[in-house]
């Protein structure tokens, strides 16, 4: 039997959850014994296989049209979708901007910033369209929520090793932290 495939992707987050994934250190070899890591921000392949993967992992919330596309693509190609980290689970730190309008936040970022001279809000049609920051579950159904900012390496290892062995991980007690 071939090894189950895992793909990961990164949306509106800080990459900290993927850093935390790398923090499982040499245990990543144990994980790789059991699964095949396909597309991810840390491998060359950037999109989950068209033929599908067993597990899709998403870090970050969904804050524009491009993220929305990423999330829908991952959902359509994976059997089990994991929302990894507080941004994917709740919206997280980026969701702080939801208390303001998009116009206000863009103006703050591109015009009002103290270090900006002659700033303007970019309007290139190729750019993704910003939206309110949403948790992944607001856009596509999520099977497993792994909160944490970031989830610790131990929690990530627990989740991956359970999935690799065909079990749905339970996240509770010491593994449950929203930070």
């Amino acid at each position, binding site marked *: 039997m071939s090894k189950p495939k895992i793909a990961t992707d990164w949306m509106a987050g800080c990459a900290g959850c993927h850093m935390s994934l790398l923090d499982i250190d040499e245990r990543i070899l144990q994980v790789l014994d059991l699964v095949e890591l396909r597309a991810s921000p840390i491998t060359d392949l950037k999109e989950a296989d068209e033929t599908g993967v067993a597990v899709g992992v998403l870090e970050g919330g969904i804050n524009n049209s491009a993220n929305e596309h990423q999330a829908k693509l991952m959902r359509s190609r994976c059997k089990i979708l994991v929302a990894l980290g507080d941004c994917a689970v*709740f919206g997280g730190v980026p969701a702080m901007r939801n*208390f303001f309008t998009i116009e206000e936040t863009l103006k703050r970022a591109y015009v009002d910033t103290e270090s900006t001279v002659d700033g303007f809000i970019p309007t290139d049609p190729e750019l993704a369209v910003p939206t309110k920051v949403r*948790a992944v579950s607001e856009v596509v159904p999520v099977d497993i*929520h*792994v909160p944490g900012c970031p989830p610790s390496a131990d929690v990530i290892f627990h989740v991956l090793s359970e999935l690799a062995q065909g079990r749905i991980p339970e996240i509770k007690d010491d593994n449950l932290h*929203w930070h």
Partner: protein
Amino acid sequence: MVKVKIDEKELEVPEGTTVLNAARLADIEIPTLCDHPALEPYGGCRICLVEVEGARTLQPACTLPVFDKMVIKTQTDKVKEARKFVLSMIFSERNHFCPYCQVSGTDCELQNAAYAEGMTHWPIQPNWQPYPVDASHPYFVLEHNRCILCRRCVRACAELVGNYTLGMEERGSNTILIADLGVPLGSSSCISCGVCVQICPTGALIDRWSAYRGQTKDVTTTKSICVGCSLGCGIEVIHRDNNLIKINGDWDAPINGGVLCDVGRFLPMDEKRSRIVTPLVRKNGALKASTWDEALRVVMDKLNPLVGKKDDGVASIISTRLPAEALFYFKQIFKEKINSDMVTSTEEGRYTAVLSEIAADKGSFESKLSEISNADAVLTIGLDLTKDHQVAGFFVKRIIPKGVNVIPVSYEASGMDGFTPYSTVINRSTDLEFLQALDAEIDGKDVSSLASKAGVSVDQLAQIAEILRKAESSVFVYDAEFDSKKKKETIATLIKLAEKINAKLISPKGKANSLAAEQLRLNKSFELNGHQAVFVALGDEEPSQNLLKKLDNSPFLVVMASYESALTAKADVVLPVANWLEYSGNYVTSDGQVQKANKSLQAPADVKTSEEVLLEIADRLRMVINPLWNKAIKMETSVIEID
């Protein structure tokens, strides 16, 4: 007793017990948020819902009293679903994103409740309506976005402190915590006691000093007592790496039951004085850093020739903030060994000396502070419990809603005026005339001339007399600092009046060890007279203007002190000593309870405790110190029985 069955556990509990408390007796945990042991049950948050056999719907455990043969289930699917639903609704109401919240980690009761239910996420996102942040208060911040509307703060402000500053405005999702009629906290009637901050289950009320400086898991907690005044409130000193992080009221403390005033909770955090970290000796007119050995040698060279000189030797003063041990050693050194006629305390017996005189004749006559909560009428005279000994003021204020009539008598408007219709302003220094008038009024005699002297109307006197006459367990809270010429007579009149209407007498006295100093008779009015040197054991007390004036012309001045002050600037030798957090020692409360303050912080390297310094001086005087302070404070009759 009634029989109940909770999750298959059968037990008997007293009638009237709530389901929540019955479950606690059975060691069954029911989650709560709005409930707090120090407050009346409220039933606001609905997280404690349980299934009761025969009941149509789930019932809140915190407010529901048990009935006989009640069958309660706390762990059914229905209950668990309801809990999660309630939590989801709370989380989605405002900004409850944990990563950037001060209490996230171990200190948030909302987060802990979600963890206990194994919630990995919440199903409904908030509606992103921003709420204001009120940062107008000097000691804490009110972050409405973190508020879960449990009203613990509102109830604590009312039930525990009796101040009624906090309340709620609007309805539904617009409900918002307000101070007074919607003014910023900083300009409200808030008295900064901080009980609301201590009782808040989330990060909605954040104390400025302790915020982000460590949570329960990072810090050490030392139970101790507050030395801000003589009530002896129990506190928890929270510290980390020898830094003071926060002071909380000790919920288990018998005296205060968790509440504190701003003097106990926030003042020590706001310490701005400079610390003295090394002995100082005056050389060529200026204070220079020195060693303990040199400094003590200079002190002993001065003291040794003065041993035995009664009125031209050493005058000495000790702070009543210092522990009983230090007070007793001090007395032995300066009174018994050196034989000086001027050995006293910084309080100079102001609040206590006359009480001892009366007690010597008629025995102990005061009652415990806790009697206030049993009172059906309270008269306060000679003090303002909203300024000093504030926690006693909380005790008085919080019984007013129970229908207790409170009569504060003072020379000017006081913080009590808004809470009782019986505030009475009398002419300055006419406490005696007022009490005589009241006494006469109770006897049904003519009071017009006395009343006009005191500046009160006869009608007002009649009203007060009526209240006191009707009361079955009235309490007089007084301060012995009446007009000095009439002091003894005033107190005698007060006692006579109390006896007549069977009232209990309570006086909160002065600083932390006021009564211990009095029992050691360190209670003289200080006069320099012909003394050639002055020794002041100041500890961490700030010297009063009065003391500074009296010490203006000291020929030679030794000061033991923790902080730089106008007094240390004048000293010839300064001996650096530990502050109140840096030693353990015993204190006698104003109502005679002996309590131990526990050391929580380590003093700087070259700083000794006052006790150590006094023992060192005793040693150099070749005298043996009697350590039995607890016997010594009971040698004389006390105004109140000492435990």
